[in-house]
């Protein structure tokens, strides 16, 4: 299993894909620097920045870019019969699917860490003197990461299914755009998987919950949709004619 993951890693290591991860902090810097909410009555200037940056980042950027990454790590196999070569090796299809998924998780985690750095930089450039609220920030970083689990499972599924980048991206867009409206709704917001990255990164959410949303919502919506998409993709890949 480890060897399958490391072979996936070798395919990526020297490619320009790692530059893709740098887009996240740049976008973070852009959102953080370009706007100011004015006084929203936050107790601390860091909170103001966090509310503002996490919104655009989690609603649009994170779901969209994680879909792009999913397509990227299937690219080698789609070119020139790579699936045939890969699956002719003594590996099971399940292991290939799982290791691609694990690698995606790691990439997105790294991206989240880089985004964390960009939050810090925005604050430094903006001359915020209060101590960095690490106890809140790490929760948004990890929470946002966990919320992408189901999304990348679906994106991996459709990326394996389609050769082109455009088709998985189109599906991603169709689900991601409505998020802007859905998260406003008290009733439907908590049940929309694409809204979870925002809800779990929204420090304005309910403060008594650990990840700003109730645990049963995480388990039910994130966990449930993760199982659905992951098992769906897994079974699809088992049966796919390559």
């Amino acid at each position: 299993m480890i060897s399958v993951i490391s072979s996936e890693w070798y395919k990526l290591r020297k490619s320009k894909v790692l530059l893709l991860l740098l887009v996240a902090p740049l976008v973070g810097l852009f959102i953080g620097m370009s706007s100011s909410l004015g006084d929203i009555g936050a107790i601390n200037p860091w909170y103001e920045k966090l509310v503002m940056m996490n919104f655009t980042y989690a609603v649009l950027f994170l779901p969209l870019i994680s879909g792009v990454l999913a397509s990227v790590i299937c690219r080698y196999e789609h070119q020139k019969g790579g699936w045939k070569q890969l699956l002719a090796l003594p590996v099971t299809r399940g292991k290939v699917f799982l290791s691609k998924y694990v690698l995606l998780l790691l990439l997105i985690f790294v991206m989240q860490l880089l985004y964390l750095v960009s939050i810090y930089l925005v604050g430094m450039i903006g001359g915020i003197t209060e101590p960095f609220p690490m106890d809140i920030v790490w929760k948004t970083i990890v929470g946002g990461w966990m919320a992408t689990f189901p999304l990348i499972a679906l994106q991996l599924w459709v990326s394996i299914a389609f050769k082109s980048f455009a088709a998985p991206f189109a599906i991603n867009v169709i689900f991601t755009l409505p998020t802007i409206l859905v998260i406003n709704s008290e009733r439907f917001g908590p049940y929309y998987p694409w809204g979870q990255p925002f809800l779990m990164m929204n420090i304005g959410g309910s403060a008594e919950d650990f990840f700003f949303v109730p645990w049963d919502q995480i388990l039910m919506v994130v966990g449930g949709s993760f199982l659905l998409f992951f098992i769906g993709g897994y079974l699809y890949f088992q049966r796919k004619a390559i």
Partner: protein
Amino acid sequence: MIFPLIQSDFLKIKRKGMWLLCLIGPFGVVALQMVNYGVRKDYLFEQMDDRWLYYLLNINTFTPLAIVLGIVILTSFMSSIEDETNAWKQLVALPVSKRSVYLSKFTVISCILFLSSVLLFLFVFGYGLTLGLGEDIPYLRLMEYSFLPFFAALPVLGLQLWVATISKNQAIPVTLGVIGVIFAYSAPLLPDWMIWKWPALSNDWGHAYINALLGIGFGVLLYLLGMVDFKRRDVK
């Protein structure tokens, strides 16, 4: 000479779901407002005296995003049709100029986007009528908010088509597109010279048609730049 090329490009996108996207885009934009108005119609009616205008402004929060994303998808799709089977070589080996190959791609995508704008107009108008937004239907504004974003987005089309045709790895244009969407979404914060701001139809002068004119001008410019670059480039 250009018409057979355009025909062949239309043939290539047949039954690939592109026409479906052309329908989903405008329908999605209006459907989101159907949900919005369905859930909190009374609240939204109180926001502004001119209910039609407020409705159109609501529509226009999603139109730029849908157009920019649509452009990203269509351009990347057009070029991956050729990439997948290594068809660029065969295509330029035909007795057609590289310039017309590029022009044909641009034309086909513009046609699809324009058709989307027509559909957007029809959907917005149709749903607006059922909402009971008042007797005075602002036809001119309706046309503005349906068609001007398309013209204002032409520079984005020029840029994305350029990047998509010259990139072997479609991750590059798609990532650029994602960044573009973030820009389009943050339009009110951007300076007026950024092309991603234009589809939102807001500017310091307060006239929406300026964005469309700028869009056409810079769209042609970026198209020409892309075409010249494509012509000089070696096809691998």
